[in-house]
């Protein structure tokens, strides 16, 4: 199977803290790859490494045969026209309407006539159920709606690789079901490659072709959703099934509580 993107023995640290520790993973072309893991394990960092916004300490990021960390600034921007990232916060342009947000990359990268841009934007908004909100400003949208507009915006230019950063967070059950279906359909109909970063296990497993599970900067599991579900690894089981007790600690590393609150 051909890979669209690949991380090769990649390590990344920030402020002296190791975030990703010798990670190697492959993102096959045309498939939905889910990267799961508890909050704060470096999932978003991983997406930023793929898009070249961060540079690894060691190892390589290869996207469509190109080594991302060694690309020049201009080449990186050229590559990014073929990628898309749905931000956790939506990251909509606050001074532009919903319509203008979705039209942004079409206006920047194409010379399409205005009537065609209008039709494309309305079709994208229709697919996320927000055609009626085209003339709203981002400040008038709820968090979930803003995320859906951001999704429409990231699909506007038909990217080859689309990365979703926690797309299901803050969605009501109906929007969630629509989004899950949409991500799968968009991937299949437009022949995209999708990377889905999430901690919503069930939703992610239901649409992914391949799963990687990250914890504390290491890969603790990989394979098809069925394979991952049948795991014997206690760490993986604890995360997938939400067990309170297990090898993964709920608490951030710290001194013992007694030592901190009851000093001698």
């Amino acid at each position: 199977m051909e890979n669209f993107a690949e991380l090769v023995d990649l390590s990344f640290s920030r402020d002296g803290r190791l975030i990703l520790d010798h990670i190697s993973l492959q993102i096959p072309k045309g498939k939905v790859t889910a990267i799961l893991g508890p909050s704060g394990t470096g999932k978003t960092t991983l997406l930023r490494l793929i898009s070249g916004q961060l540079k690894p300490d060691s190892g390589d990021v290869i996207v469509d045969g190109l080594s991302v960390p060694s690309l020049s600034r201009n080449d990186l921007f050229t590559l990014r026209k073929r990628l898309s990232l749905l931000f956790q916060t939506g990251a909509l342009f606050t001074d532009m309407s919903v319509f203008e947000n979705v039209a942004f990359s079409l206006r920047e990268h194409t010379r399409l006539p205005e009537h065609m841009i209008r039709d494309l934007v309305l079709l994208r908004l229709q697919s996320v159920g927000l055609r009626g909100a085209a003339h709203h400003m981002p400040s008038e949208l709820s968090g979930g709606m803003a995320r859906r507009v951001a999704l429409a915006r990231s699909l506007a230019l038909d990217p080859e690789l689309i990365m979703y950063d926690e797309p299901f967070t803050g969605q009501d059950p109906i929007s969630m079901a629509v989004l899950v279906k949409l991500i799968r359909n968009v991937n299949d109909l437009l022949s995209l490659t999708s990377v889905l970063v999430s901690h919503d296990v069930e939703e992610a497993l239901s649409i992914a072709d391949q799963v990687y599970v990250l914890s504390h900067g290491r890969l603790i599991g990989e394979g098809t959703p069925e394979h991952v579900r049948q795991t014997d690894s206690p760490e993986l089981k604890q995360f997938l099934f939400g067990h309170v007790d297990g090898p993964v600690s709920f608490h951030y590393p710290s001194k013992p509580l007694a030592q901190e609150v009851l000093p001698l």
Partner: protein
Amino acid sequence: MMVKALVNRVRFIGNGMLNISAGVGRAAWFFIHVLSWGSGFKAPFKRLLQQVYQLGVLSLPIVLVAGLFVGMVLALQGYHILVGYGSQEAVGQMVALSLLREFGPVVTALLFAGRAGSALTAEIGLMKATEQLSAMEIMGVDPFKRIMAPRLWGGVITLPILTVMFSVLGIYGGAFVAVEVLGIYDGSYWANMQNSVEFNEDVVKGVVKSLVFAVVVTWLAIFHGWNATPTSQGISRATTATVVQASLAVLALDFILTAVMLGGF
């Protein structure tokens, strides 16, 4: 103990110097990258016009009112100094030369740093904090060309124009006080000014000064926005840094430029 304290002090100073050098390096790298607004003409030009409006037209009220009052005060002070020598007719010359050479470029740049510079830093800092700049990068749109360059060039174009307007209003403010209030013959006010003001020596040099101030103030403003820590306190600190550093830079550069233009001390 003493040696350790000394080593720590040297280390502290060394670290500070390294940070300053790194900051200057980053700012210089940033400046070179934001000079180009990218390919095409129509869309970048439209963005430039938007910035000329934001930075220039919206700064007009504060600049014009300030110009008027500075001119009025100069005439009042000048009159009371000159009248002791019986030379009160030269007040027009004094007002015009002070405004065109010094007050116009310097005060307008200080007002611009406070009004437009702080707004630029806060705007770009907030765009960074809300990941709008990152979103743009991911879409293959360079924020340096799309966001920073029009603002830099907008500042460079508007500040000299604002400076000229400040001086013109100041001269009229001075005329109002000198002629209407203090009773100086208006022919003397304008004729003295006309005889003493040299276009190349006074007007052009004042505009050259304001061009230099425009580059420095706008550069500092957008750099601090781009470099801001993406938190509310980070943006607040960046905005303060813009106003403080830009104001000091304007005053220091004014001294250097004046010395150069006068051909030495």
